[in-house]
């Protein structure tokens, strides 16, 4: 197999209402086993996927949001969130879940995974990738 590539999963849809977010997360979990460089991007309604306090009881579907917090243990430590998408929806970084990872290169210090970026910075992140999966 060739050397590790940079994979970016672009999440654009709200977590419930369609299955895109859940099935995207399933790819991320499988992909994490492949020793590639993995990052996630959250844009448009996709920012709701990592919003705090999700409650799906009355929807009758599973609340899968806790899974995002576990991704650090799978080596998925970069969650790029587009600031404009937050602003347009009346959200701020404080409305997002606390998602962290333990940095093995820094004495396993707990560090935030979420990186809020501008549209221009998001474009840079995308330009830097080898494989972009858009869901």
């Amino acid at each position, binding site marked *: *197999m*060739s050397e590790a*590539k940079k*994979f970016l999963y672009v999440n654009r849809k709200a977590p419930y209402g369609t*299955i*895109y977010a859940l*099935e995207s997360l*399933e*790819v991320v979990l*499988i*992909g994490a*086993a*492949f020793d*590639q460089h993995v990052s996630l991007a959250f844009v448009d309604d996709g920012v709701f996927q990592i919003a705090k306090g999700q409650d799906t009881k009355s929807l009758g579907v599973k609340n899968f949001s806790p899974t995002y917090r576990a991704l650090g243990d799978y080596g998925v430590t970069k969650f790029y969130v587009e600031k404009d998408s937050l602003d347009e929806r009346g959200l701020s970084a404080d409305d997002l879940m606390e998602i962290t990872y333990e940095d093995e290169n820094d004495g396993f210090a707990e560090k935030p995974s979420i990186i809020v970026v501008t549209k221009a910075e998001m474009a840079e992140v995308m330009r830097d990738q*080898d*494989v*972009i*999966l*858009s*869901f």
Partner: protein
Amino acid sequence: MKLSILVNEGPYTHQAADSAYQFTKAALDKGVEIFRVFFYHDGVNNGTRLTVPPQDDRNIQKNWSDLAEKHKLDLVVCIAAAQRRGILDEGEAKRHGKGEGAANIAPGFRISGLGQLIEAGIEADRLVVFGD
């Protein structure tokens, strides 16, 4: 140039299914190598042999099967997405007790895991995504 294709939408509902087919066919006609076509989300519905479109309409599922036969294409349907939506091969139909003849995977398609999608991204020069 070696390409992989990801099809995320179902036939007859979304242009993405047609576009993916037309793009793949055009690439093959130009001699471009297609490493794999992976079907995910409702895209798995492109791989059922039970599709019966009206006679004056295109048959998207058959188009894929024909293309696969002609070019030895690797058409892979995601097993998790397929099971949710009732797309089964012989082995899965038997394993889940769905009865004789329940297998509906179309000719030229095979059912496998999401690892095949990641591998498609690793092995190809470009992964082209067709979706909403």
